[in-house]
């Protein structure tokens, strides 16, 4: 058994990176991810890791350097938030399209304007279509565990894709909580030795990265990328099973809480899922059959599995900590896609909450559940998309 510590989410992720000891990290600081990489850079400075830390002048350069290092044949990681991820945008597609298994903690933070340093999922959702796998973590323990599993998933020969591991900025990244660390030797064994695939530095077998592919085969290339994504869930579950053997901590594509016999469900990601579970318990004590589904893997999105898990409920509220202005919340759109695969068609509402770090308080969860009770009774949805926790 590992050591139990009181640490922040950032500290826990820095510890995971230290235990994994990547070959190269290229990074540029941005709140709230700064603290994560700053802690890791101390490990580099103190000789605790062998990593070559490349300090660059922007996040665009950070991701570019990561791409170069990964193509050269290294195990590569970086971390960022918000504007930093936005600045990486074009390089994110190149990392995924080139199938480079880069791993990146994303400390979720709102996007400008107006300038805001606090937690929401706008940054991660903006990178939804880049071809990266995305995992969202409820707490520091999950961020640490997901980060360790991410390397195995990214580097699996059936996947070979970059992975983002998300946690809520400040709410998790800067809160101290109990985390169980895994022993260094166990992490090392679990992650395994890095096996480069088609490394540029293998000079005996020259190869070329970043080709031009026009109308002849681009369409096929992209279909191949989609096919690879469909293989990821099996790998994610295999890795989770091994992880459970090592730690006793169970992970799936998503987590369900008191959902089996539920009439109504809340779908919500990250730290807000924790708060929601506490409120669900209160309603369960009063006999209200409410449950929760917390997506862990957002990309690829487990449509079929989710449809199966929600097939018996009458009403669903999807809580998004991001918005697509003029559209629906990004998580809602996915859940609605899953619902379309069901024979039963539950009523689904969309609540936008917690933007720019607005606290998600118990009364917001209560409001959502109270409304779900009415919807389950009447089958009628008054407002499909609504902002909650708004100061009037």
């Amino acid at each position, binding site marked *: 058994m590992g050591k*139990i*510590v*009181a640490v922040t989410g950032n500290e826990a992720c820095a510890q995971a990176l230290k235990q994994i000891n990547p070959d190269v990290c290229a990074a540029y600081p941005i709140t709230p991810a700064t603290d994560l990489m700053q802690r890791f850079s101390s490990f580099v400075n103190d000789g605790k890791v062998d990593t070559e830390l490349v300090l660059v002048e922007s996040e665009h350069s950070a991701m570019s350097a990561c791409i170069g290092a990964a193509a050269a044949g290294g195990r590569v990681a970086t971390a960022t938030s918000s504007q930093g991820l936005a600045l990486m945008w074009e390089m994110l597609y190149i990392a995924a399209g080139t199938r480079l298994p880069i791993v990146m903690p994303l400390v979720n933070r709102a996007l400008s304007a107006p300038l805001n*340093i*606090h937690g929401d999922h706008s940054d991660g959702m903006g990178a939804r279509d880049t071809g990266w796998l995305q995992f969202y973590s*409820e*707490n520091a323990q999950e961020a640490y565990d997901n980060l360790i599993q991410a390397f195995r998933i990214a580097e699996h020969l059936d996947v070979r894709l970059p992975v983002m591991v998300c946690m*809520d900025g*400040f*709410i*998790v990244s*800067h*809160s*101290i*909580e*109990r985390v169980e660390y895994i022993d260094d030797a166990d992490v090392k064994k679990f992650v395994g030795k890095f096996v480069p695939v088609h490394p540029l530095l293998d000079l005996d077998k020259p190869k070329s990265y970043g080709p031009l592919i026009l109308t002849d085969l681009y369409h096929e290339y992209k279909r191949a990328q989609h096919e690879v994504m469909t293989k990821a869930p099996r790998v994610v579950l295999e890795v989770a099973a091994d992880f459970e053997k090592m730690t006793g901590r169970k992970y799936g594509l998503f987590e369900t809480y008191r959902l089996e016999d539920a009439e109504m469900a809340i779908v919500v990601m990250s*730290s*807000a899922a*924790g*708060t929601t*579970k*506490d409120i669900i318990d209160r309603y369960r004590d009063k006999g209200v059959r409410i449950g929760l589904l917390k997506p862990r893997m957002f990309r690829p999105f487990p449509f079929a599995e989710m449809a199966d898990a929600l097939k018996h409920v009458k009403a669903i509220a999807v809580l998004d900590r991001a918005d697509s202005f003029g559209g629906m919340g990004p998580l809602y759109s996915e859940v609605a896609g899953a619902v379309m695969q069901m024979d039963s068609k539950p009523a689904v509402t969309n609540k936008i909450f917690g933007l720019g770090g607005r*606290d*998600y*308080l*118990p009364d917001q969860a209560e409001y959502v559940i109270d409304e779900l009770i009415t919807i389950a009774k009447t089958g009628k949805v008054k407002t499909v998309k609504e902002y909650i926790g708004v100061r009037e």
Partner: protein
Amino acid sequence: MGDMIEIRWHGRGGQGTVTAAKVLADACLSKGGYVQAFPEYGPERAGAPIRAFNRISDHAIRMYGPVLHPKIVSIADATLMDAVNVTEGSPDDCIFLVNTSKDPKEVRLKLKAKDTQKVFAVDATKIALDCFGRPLPNSSILGALCKATGVVKLDVLLENVKKSFGKKFAQKIIDGNIEAAKRGYEEVREG
């Protein structure tokens, strides 16, 4: 310790209030509990009113967000009683601990505390000045908190004060903080 205990700290930027919440979390963790410690992040200026929070439980803590109904309110600077609403959301069995040279009965009146609420006072800044010559009251407040609330035992706290300060400070400062925590424990008074 049955249910979750929630604590709200009021202090001023630079006073060490956030560190106090962290040391308490470490101390509660080392006796096998689940903990949370986090400040409210705003403009970080020395002297500005800040709040920090702890949750302590025997079971996994899932609730995030600020503590709304603190069982314990610890006020590191008595002038904050005039500046912010330190009693906000306090339940009938709330325990207040104030760093002040004033009599605890006077503090009770100032807070307009209910009869069912407990009020404790400790001259934590004076103790800190006596013990290590700097007006940083967190060690003496933590000692007083041990006595007033029983949330953690004094010897466990002292170990964690040693551990926390040991990383950054000279032996003289560590010893001074240990002494301050002990004196806070001994000198806290209920009113």
